[in-house]
């Protein structure tokens, strides 16, 4: 990857988190898995970035990359730049990144039952997270802090629940405990990887509310990874749509929802059930299956599933579209070969009436 000197001497101060041309690939027995290619995005404190995409689109891998969790995998190769609060992480030492992990940046995982250790009490796991980053804190102090945090995320009787194991918690309470563990060191960057996927619908809303409240309280930057567009609409300021390891659409959340530019985003919106519309025959799913990251289709990775792929010649089949300005204003970007006029026309005439 080439680093241009202007990025170092740039006039604007860096955003709190800035990811530039991030590439993550894994060398496996089956071949090289190009999990993330050329991702660039940034995020300010107090803002929420939604990353949307199907399983295997590279959204989780991106966030694990920010945390530096691929460093422990010998077959992973990460290139590009990740700037957190003025520090570059990809070229930092393991030890430096480890100290940021769980401290300045923390992560809430998807399935809290498997993400928590079955043999340690929930409380001791939170205490452990606190004491790594506060080595001078006494056990008692850490315990009080953990109980305080459990109370803050809305767990009743936190002193008692402190000594319980993960399997003794209900799903929602477990996710709350997971959040308490992530927030114990007041992280400035919080990454939530599908935090509501394993939960009941009623509990989902509570957890999202909780994350939003805590974000307001702590003023942290939040990355919300999800395949649930409803969650993004609820929380995100900006949205990235990922497909086949690449960002294919990027913009303000309202813009992306109201004026989506990529046929894949249209597909995602079309496959979302909605109650505020008349019941039609059926949802319109995105046809086909996500591509293999070992062997991406030539040209636009989405072309085999794109109903509009052949509309303007054969470029979609041969040439990889770059993420560029969608020409609809507000910094909205898209990676699609269709010219702006065609996108607008197709969306207005063919897609919108069916949403």
């Amino acid at each position, binding site marked *: 990857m080439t680093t241009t000197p202007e990025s170092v001497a740039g006039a604007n101060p860096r955003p709190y988190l800035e990811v530039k041309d991030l590439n993550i690939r894994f060398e496996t027995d089956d071949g090289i898995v190009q999990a993330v290619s050329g991702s660039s995005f940034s995020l300010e404190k107090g803002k929420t970035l939604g990353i949307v995409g199907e399983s295997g689109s590279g959204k989780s891998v991106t966030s*694990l990359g920010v*945390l530096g*969790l691929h460093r*422990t995998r010998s077959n992973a190769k990460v290139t590009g730049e990740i700037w957190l609060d003025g520090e570059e992480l990809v070229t930092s030492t393991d030890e430096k990144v*480890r*100290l*940021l*992990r*769980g*401290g300045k940046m*923390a*992560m809430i*995982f998807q*399935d809290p039952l*498997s*993400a*928590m*250790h*079955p*043999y*340690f*009490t929930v409380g001791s796991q939170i205490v*452990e*997270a606190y004491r*790594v*980053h506060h080595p001078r804190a006494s056990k008692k102090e850490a315990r009080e802090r953990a109980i305080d945090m459990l109370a803050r995320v809305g767990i009743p009787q936190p002193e008692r629940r402190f000594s319980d*194991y993960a*399997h003794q918690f209900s799903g929602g309470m477990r996710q709350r405990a997971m959040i308490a*563990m992530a927030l114990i060191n007041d992280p400035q960057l919080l990454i939530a990887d599908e935090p509501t996927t394993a939960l009941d619908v009623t509990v989902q809303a509570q957890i999202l509310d909780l994350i939003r409240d805590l974000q307001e309280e702590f003023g942290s930057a939040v990355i919300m990874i999800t395949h649930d567009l409803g969650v993004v609409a609820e929380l995100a300021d900006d949205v990235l749509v990922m497909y086949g390891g690449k960002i294919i659409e990027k913009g303000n959340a309202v813009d992306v929802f109201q004026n989506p530019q990529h046929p894949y985003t249209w597909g995602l919106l079309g496959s979302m059930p909605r109650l505020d519309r008349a019941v039609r025959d059926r949802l319109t799913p995105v046809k086909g299956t996500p591509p293999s990251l070992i062997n991406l289709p030539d040209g636009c990775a989405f072309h085999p599933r794109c109903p509009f792929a052949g509309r303007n010649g054969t470029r979609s089949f041969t040439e990889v579209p770059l993420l560029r300005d969608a020409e609809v204003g507000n910094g909205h970007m898209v990676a699609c070969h269709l010219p702006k006029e065609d996108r607008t026309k197709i969306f207005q005439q063919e897609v919108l009436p069916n949403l």
Partner: protein
Amino acid sequence: MLAYLIRRLLNAVVTLLVVTLVTFGVFFLVPKATGSDPALLYIGKQADPVAVEGIRTKLGLNDPIIVQYGKFVKGIVAGRDYANGPDVTHCSAPCLGYTFKTNQEVWPILIKALPVTISLAIGAAVLWVLMGILFGVISALRRGSVWDRGVMTVALAGVSLPIYFTGLLALTIFVYGLDWLPNPEYTPFVDNPAKWFSGLILPWVTLAFLFAATYARLTRANMLETLGEDYIRTARAKGLRESTVIGKHGLRSGLTPLVTVFGLDLGALLGGAILTEAVFNLRGLGYWALNGIRTNDLPTILGVTLFAAFFIVIMNLIVDLLYGVIDPRVRLG
């Protein structure tokens, strides 16, 4: 918890009773079926028929089998008298009878053999657990490396090579060849700890090699599985040192399944490591088991079998109780 414990203990007693019943049945019925007479085994083949009949009465061999069994169990619990009219021999509890060939009480022989077997088993267990876990963990962490392949190849050899081969090889090299170690023998620990150690080190290593191989493979597989778990990723995401991630979070769940295997292996060994004891000429339970089988000495065989069963049952119980402690998801009650 207490109710559970009592239930398990009763269960253990019943299991042992069933074991005695089956063993008693097999070893006293089979000679009958094959036409060989326990009384003849005891007294020798060319004996005077009157003497044989006397022995038969004294050993109670004329009683129905169920009465014989009852007397046998009573002997263990309360002791028994072998009587042929005025000729009475008292065998105090716990009585496992007399050896046919040498006319010694079985119980004291086995009690004397027990420390040998326990020393052998415990020493080897310490070695194989340490080695197995160490090599297994390193292999798991360096998966696919030359080291991993090397360890796993040696482990495969360890699993495949029988103890009478490795044992004799070790004897030939280290005792008779290089003369580094004394000929293996048992000296009680309290008499001379250094001699106890030097006399047993070769049997320990040989026995441990066999088990360490299995444990290394098991540890490696468990660790690989554990290190792929989500909670290991969580531990790393918290910013824990890699040594804590592996040494605390990884080992805690990676080694838990080993407890079951270890309990059963140790239990089985405590009942006598027949091959090892034979190869190194150690007079433990295994030696007496082999001796009993070789000389068709039914009381000895019965006694050793009982001891072996006792250890298996006890270790099983301990493992089950331990699981309630080490795995919080298992609730006893």
